[in-house]
């Protein structure tokens, strides 16, 4: 009960920022909330299903590129059309990559998702028609205006959070957690575990696509670095920092990381070293992340 209250207050506070109309905060928190969406969708795989995927940035970037292609190529901007198409493309890519990658397990799975991510990265990076390493501008954005974009992102975060917590409480989510605990036992109980894992992979990929779509909408710009493995690594860091296996943990991690990134860059040019030190410290001393500090709270 208390946890719900805290989350409700946090959501309301994030929504209230829109009313201030402050340029910096809208942009900054908008970006941070996109990070939240991305992190909690990855946590569906990492924390709940036990799949360490490095392909998450690929779906994020792909949807952003699809939106850019639709608006720049055929002049289609209306979100009612571009949003479903972009998310569907990300989900479809997740289906293909997931189907191939899930043939492998454990550490092979990590490496294979990494390789597919880099493959997509090079496809966009090496092709002049797709903008090359410089990336592309979105010529007309689906949602105009910073405040409107902020409200859309805020609503998307709430929806994704509610959707995922519903999914995880449903029998489907229980099966995923069973797979994380002991996949063989789940299989012997008759669950087609690979199909469940693929379903989780596609759902997570689609949500990552949504985050990428929102990112391109907020910034009006895409580049191949958003697809690269470093980006995927950073999302993993977010999940771990916040606390895997909870939904609010990764969201908290994303907010915190956004602050560190912004203020770290002000203090020193080498803020990446700060992040590195933080990551190493969390892995060594706080394996359950920030959420591990909160005792007894429900996880979803």
């Amino acid at each position: 009960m208390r946890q719900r209250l805290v989350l409700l207050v946090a959501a309301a506070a994030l929504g209230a920022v829109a009313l201030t109309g402050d340029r910096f905060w809208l942009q900054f928190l908008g970006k941070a909330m996109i990070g939240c969406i991305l992190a909690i969708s990855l946590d569906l795989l990492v924390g709940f299903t036990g799949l360490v995927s490095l392909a998450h940035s690929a779906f994020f970037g792909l949807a952003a590129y699809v939106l850019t292609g639709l608006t720049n190529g055929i002049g289609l901007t209306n979100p009612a059309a571009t949003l479903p198409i972009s998310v569907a493309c990300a989900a479809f890519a997740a289906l293909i990559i997931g189907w191939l990658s899930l043939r492998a397990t454990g550490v092979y799975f990590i490496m294979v998702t990494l390789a597919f991510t880099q493959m997509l990265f090079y496809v966009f990076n090496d092709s002049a028609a797709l903008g090359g390493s410089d990336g592309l501008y979105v010529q007309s954005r689906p949602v105009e205006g910073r405040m409107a974009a902020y409200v859309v992102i805020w609503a998307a975060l709430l929806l994704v959070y509610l959707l995922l917590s519903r999914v995880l409480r449903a029998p489907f989510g229980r099966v995923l957690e069973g797979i994380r605990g002991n996949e063989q036992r789940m299989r012997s109980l008759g669950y087609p575990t690979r199909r469940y894992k693929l379903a989780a992979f596609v759902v997570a990929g689609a949500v990552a696509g949504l985050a990428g779509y929102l990112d391109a909408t907020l910034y009006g710009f895409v580049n191949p670095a958003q697809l690269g493995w470093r980006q995927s690594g950073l999302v993993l860091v977010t999940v771990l920092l916040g606390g895997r296996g909870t939904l609010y943990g990764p969201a908290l991690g994303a907010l915190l990381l956004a602050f560190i990134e912004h203020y770290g860059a002000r203090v020193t040019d080498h803020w990446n070293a700060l992040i590195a030190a933080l990551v190493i410290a969390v892995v060594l001393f706080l394996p359950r992340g920030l959420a591990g500090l909160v005792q007894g709270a429900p996880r979803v």
Partner: protein
Amino acid sequence: MSLSLFALQVVNGVEYGLLLFLVASGLTLVFGVLGVLNFAHGSFYMLGAYLAFWLSQRTGSLLLAILVGLPVMVVIGLVVERLAIARLYARDHLSQVLLTYGLVLLFNELQRGLFGNDVHGVATPKALAWTMPLGEAQTWPAWRAFTALACICVAAGMRQVILKTRFGMRVRAGASNAEMVEALGIDVRKLFATLFSAGTALAGFAGMLAAPLTTVYPGMGEGVLILSFVVVVIGGIGSIKGAFVGALLVGLADTFGKVLLPGFASAMVYAVMAAVLLWRPRGLLGPAFEGR
């Protein structure tokens, strides 16, 4: 494609593949025996290249730089193993990925702080600065031939060590069952530290050999890291022979891809990997069942 151009692609592909093997063999052994997935392995390649650049400026000779640089790489390996990797042996893959990812960020910042964002050239040693003719129209630089030869020597030496020495026997035993090796009273910590620093030195050596060929630049380790993962996945984790086959396959696929399908070359390698995975999900020479 003319015959001499074809021959040039083959030797270049093999040479590149051999270089990849040096990096991938360390990666596959460290995972196979220590059970640690090391993302910082590419950083050792980068460190090696930067050491070659810095030391060859000080000493005036790349060969001398390599001689001095190799022990430095061994020490770096020992220190990283003691401070970071040793804490990961009992942890899950996610912790390993994240901690070594943190190391990648750290090494990148170190490189940026010390050498900046510029690209640096490294001079080929004078004795090897000539080229040999290949067919009518093509030439092959002697340094590439030297690189290939050095890699072959290292691979052959590695084979001898792993098959014929007591240390190699322990490595092989560790790859199949590290717990049992420990139960038999062998100091696993020492074995692990030695193996890790050997892998570090191999990756560094590859970076030093590549320095005159590719120049030295920020982030140069990451491309090699990802390709080494592809090599390991193709060959099968923990298998040196698999790494050798995989490395040659990837080297050739990449070199020919650049000539035959420019613009799609980098993706070509991953297509090969996907094909292998569809056929054999544990790699060409990987274990039939998952060991760990």
